[in-house]
């Protein structure tokens, strides 16, 4: 049994009169204990919405979310709250997700007030232990305010707050994308260490390809709210089959000027998802579009766990050869 399972999840938002945004369309995914599944895509691809649905911070329009085998949609508020202590979230902007008027120690203690019956002294001991765990040891630091901390320290506080209730799942919503490279490396190292020590599962939402490749076991590539490709990270990174996955991976620039840059054959910008998706979501920008792309484009297995939603795989594979010709796969 997977720790977290999303089955056929869709989410529509109403914006104004009779206009809708189709943010997430019929997504399946599962995260096993102690594993990292990355959801990768550009802004507007629905990946953050998906993360919020996984935590039941948003209700899906259709489909279900199972955590430890229990359907979150069928739980009452008390049961949901109890389960929430085991599923936590780390946000993108560390400073904006911390209350500027609360001391670090109080911020980290807050989930315990909601989720535990610990005494004040026990809470304090737990907070200091967790802060130590994320590399923010010392009583003095717990008394500081978020504004007095660096971006990296702020994100450590966000992580401490997330793990203080001893969760089994963390949703990491772009936890490093507002940080400088050297700080990002610190946070990634910390996340890796915590995963090993606490047997945490991560649903890692990101647009940063290098980070995803470094951290994830499996990846899900989203475009316009729809999964276009999914599979074990190694497989997808070694041979991306969907034209969009290819473009996305080809867009990552390595810092070595001797590496060959894959050529990008994309046109145009991503559209706004205000029409109900019909046919392939990517066909407007796709260099190997054919007539069948206007029809039904299901996500089907191309071997093992690797699945692709493309009806012109022959064309897509030719495109991959052109795109990555001569370049070591990123």
């Amino acid at each position, binding site marked *: 049994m997977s720790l977290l399972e999303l089955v056929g999840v869709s989410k529509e938002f109403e914006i104004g009169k009779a206009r809708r945004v189709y943010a997430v369309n019929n997504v399946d995914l599962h995260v096993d204990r102690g594993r990292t599944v990355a959801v990768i895509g*550009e*802004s507007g691809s629905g990946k953050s919405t998906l993360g919020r649905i996984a935590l039941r911070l948003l209700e899906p329009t259709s489909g279900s979310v199972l955590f430890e085998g229990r359907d979150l949609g069928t739980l009452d508020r008390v049961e949901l709250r109890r389960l929430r202590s085991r599923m936590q979230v780390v946000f993108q902007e560390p400073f904006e997700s911390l209350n500027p008027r609360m001391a670090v120690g109080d911020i980290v203690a807050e989930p315990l007030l909601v989720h535990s019956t610990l005494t004040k002294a026990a809470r304090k001991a737990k907070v200091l232990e967790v802060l130590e765990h994320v590399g923010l040891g010392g009583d003095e630091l717990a008394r500081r305010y978020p504004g007095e901390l*660096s971006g*990296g320290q702020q994100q450590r506080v966000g992580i401490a707050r997330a793990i203080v209730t001893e969760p089994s799942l963390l949703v990491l919503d772009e936890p490093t994308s507002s940080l*400088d*490279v*050297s*700080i*990002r*490396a*610190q946070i*990634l*190292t910390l996340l890796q260490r915590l995963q090993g020590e606490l047997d945490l599962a991560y649903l890692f939402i990101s*647009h940063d*390809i*290098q*980070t995803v*490749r*470094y*951290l994830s076991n499996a990846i899900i590539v989203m475009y316009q709210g729809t999964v276009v490709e999914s599979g074990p990270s190694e497989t997808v990174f070694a041979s991306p089959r969907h034209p969009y996955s290819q*473009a*996305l991976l*080809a*867009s*990552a*620039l*390595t*810092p*070595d*000027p*001797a*590496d*060959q*840059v894959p*050529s*990008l054959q*994309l046109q*145009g*910008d*991503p559209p706004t998802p205000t029409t109900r998706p019909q046919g392939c979501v990517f066909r407007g920008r796709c260099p190997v579009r054919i007539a069948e792309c206007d029809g039904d484009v299901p996500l089907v297995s191309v071997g093992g766990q690797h699945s692709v939603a493309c009806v012109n795989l022959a064309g897509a594979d030719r495109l991959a050869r*052109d795109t990555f*010709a*001569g370049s070591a796969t990123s």
Partner: protein
Amino acid sequence: MTRPVAGTAPHAPPRGAAPKPLLEVRGLRTEFGTPLGVAQVVNDVSFTVRRGEILGIVGESGCGKSVTIRSILGLVRQPGKVAAGEAVFEGRDLLGMKPSELRDVRGKDIGFIAQNPFSSLNPVLRISKQLHNVLRSHDRERAANSYEIGRAALASVGIAGPERVLDGYAHQLSGGTAQRVIIAMSMLLDPALVIADEPTTGLDLTVQRQILDLVRGLVREHERSMMLVTHDLGVVAHYCDRVVVMYAGKIVEQGAVQEVLRAPKHPYTRALLDAIPRQGRPLVHLKGRLPDLVNYPSGCPFAPRCSHAFEPCTTGWPDATSSPDGHTYWCHLGAEDKEVGNVSA
């Protein structure tokens, strides 16, 4: 597909002759008054932009890279001020110019592409009007024909159906299209130098590549020079000819991209490269944080975070160590003729 070659500019002058650089910045100091004292944000920075080259300026937040270009463009506002230095552009010192003279140079001879296109566009004027205003302020004759010129300019930056964009407003544009409009605007008056401050940072990854390819194409095609400010070493590696690495308001290393990124000499440059997650390599991260820019350290500002630091590092700013090809770094290891060690060991 031919590899986009960094290196030789399309109209590089003959070897031997030392051509005059397009822009020469010397001893630039920019300070910001804070309640705690004066912060040295740009601290004695000197570099040149050669004709026809793309120069990258790279560093993390707070390193002074954006303030450096804002100083050159006369865009530093209170409580900041340029305290010393000169920026000689085609024989004239930009820092000594009157605001009206500088306004004339900006836009006409130097184009600027800011990070967020929406903060550069006026939300209540049609795009066509904004292009018209740019022409009118520098070139009244062409302004009469601004709609046609605007249509051609937008087409040249890859906007399909330019009329739709010309007749519309900024909020109707996607981020990628808005940045294309800014690029068209920045090159409307045929500037010799384009300065771009993180031009693709807020954009989607696939769009970033499209925009970078576009800007490079327009710069090369018209034999312009460009300064590209970025925090992304991947962008530097594949879109710049030379690079300047900044830390805490100082330039710590500069040279050809091939040299600086493939054989970095300064420990900070190496640390930046090692902090990028790459398959099959351990992630190495820097400890500590930027020094206090108000009480600027007397030694090397990177010394407290540097694993190679030794006694001289706390005493003073090191002399430059240069190789004949122009690869230069400022580190006591070099000054004392010690090696930093192998890259990616």
